[in-house]
């Protein structure tokens, strides 16, 4: 059963320029939340008719908190950043299918690929996979060193490969180029989230391998629950027949058309 509930902001901090971490406390269906799931957050101003989709970056069922990490890109995220600790926000979720990890074995070698605001859901995923005992490698890219976040979380859960466009930290170049420099490895699963270019790179690069590829997509959403047909994406047949909010946001990378 899907629920919406008022959760209280108990922390909000800047992780990097324009990147904020917000921690929400309160009732939430923690049991149903999986890595890759998202919530629809209602903005605290009546001019906004649409909730904002944000991935769950961390979950603490015992403390009853969820953590979101977002970039200020427009009016809604700007308002969110201005909202004070103590305020209530209405949260609808958890939503979406999440990354499929039920069948991952402890012996598997998995790769996580992310960039920019695609990184937050991978944080929760890395932890879940580590808990399963897998060998987790994460390759993430940022524009420049100042924008990096999540380093510690990924290092705690496996190996971290860092790239920055300007080389100010880690490999100089994008994640695709970084991966190209790595020794050939056999990943059983590749999970990616980030800009379309990054997802296409992952599709191409692992097309010839036996890895299962899972890509988490973004789309402009109205309902987030499969009611409006606003968020669709096309799969192999070319018609917009999949809703990112319910059949996604994670799709089989071998079927989805970007």
């Amino acid at each position, binding site marked *: 059963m899907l629920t*919406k509930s008022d959760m209280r902001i108990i922390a909000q901090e800047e992780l990097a320029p324009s990147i904020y971490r917000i921690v929400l406390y309160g009732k939430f269906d923690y049991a149903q939340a999986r890595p890759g799931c998202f919530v629809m957050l209602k903005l605290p101003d*009546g001019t906004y008719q649409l*909730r904002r989709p944000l991935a769950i970056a961390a979950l603490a069922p015992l403390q009853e908190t969820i953590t979101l990490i977002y970039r200020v890109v427009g009016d809604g995220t700007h308002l969110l950043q201005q909202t004070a600790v103590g305020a209530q926000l209405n949260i609808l979720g958890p939503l979406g299918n999440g990354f499929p990890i039920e069948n991952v074995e402890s012996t598997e070698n998995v790769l996580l690929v992310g960039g920019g605001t695609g990184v937050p859901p991978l944080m929760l995923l890395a932890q879940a996979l580590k808990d399963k005992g897998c060998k987790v490698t994460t390759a993430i890219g940022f524009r420049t060193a100042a924008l990096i976040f999540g380093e510690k979380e990924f290092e705690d859960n496996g190996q971290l490969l860092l790239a920055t466009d300007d080389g100010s930290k880690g490999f100089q170049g994008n994640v695709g180029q970084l991966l190209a420099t790595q020794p050939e490895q056999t990943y059983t699963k590749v999970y990616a989230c980030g800009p379309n270019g990054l997802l296409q790179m992952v599709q191409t690069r692992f097309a010839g391998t036996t890895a299962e590829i899972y890509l988490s997509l973004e789309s402009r959403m*109205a309902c987030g629950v499969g*009611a*409006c*047909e606003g968020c669709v994406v096309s799969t192999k047949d070319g*018609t*917009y027949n999949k809703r990112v909010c319910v059949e996604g946001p994670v799709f089989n990378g071998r079927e989805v058309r970007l």
Partner: protein
Amino acid sequence: MTAASRLAVELPGLNLKNPVMPASGCFGFGDNRYAEMFDLNELGAIIIKAATLKPRAGNPVPRIAETTSGVLNAVGLQNPGVDVILREKLPVLHQKYPTLPVVANIAGATQAEYVEVAKRMSASGMVSALELNISCPNVHEGGMLFGTDPQIAQQLTKAVKEVSQVPVYVKLSPNVTDIVAIAQAVAAGGADGLSMINTLLGMRIDLNSRKPILGNKTGGLSGPGIKPIAVRMIYQVSRAVDLPIIAMGGIESAADVLEMYMAGASAVAIGTAHFNNPTACPDIIKALPSKMEDLKINSLSELIAEVRGGYPNDD
């Protein structure tokens, strides 16, 4: 008067325990996760997503853009086609909620298509009424044209009425100079009721790309920002045409519902409000009785009689 009968309303084909229904396109065929959040049996009825003869893939994404107190959508009538709807969607809905009245929104690119969809849909035994969508701003053929020319609208209504086994509500477009003329035309065509308003044609431009945000460029504007336009049109039409009106356009609260009744409505539909508040419909249904009490409204059917009976005198 019992709480139940205060909210009950009777419209052609629609014997409703309360007047609140999700608007077409904002609740799919009931096959979405909003349905996990409350019992759909609480609804007065449900209006399902537009059905066309053939499956439609809809418009390219982005299909959704936000505006100040509004939403633009350009879904473009994506649907699996009337036959799949009748085979896969409606039976599920009907089985889960056997007493929930269903209003089927139907659309087409030609009159023949409308007629065919109306025939199949109305013969299914699973729908209580049709909502003839002559006002979709998001498709290039047909769609809105049927709703802007009175003569075409009248012909289409007549043709659909001839084949339909259930009452027909015609959903009017607000993108016209004279909404009353269109309403009169479809009344002359034999419509059993009206449904208004559909979305207003709008656009947003992305400042970075300098291009329209929506894949379809323009989209239909809905939400609380358009409510005053809906109220005005319902007021004008209800004074000129003796047909019940299902009102929609920015309704968010019990107060908004009553404002629509005072304009001339007989029932209401809720679209955009779901996006902020997934339980908008049951919340409004729950809030109505006490709001009515505050305003000394005994029952909705009395309010309809007062408002629509008072017309000869109040202008």
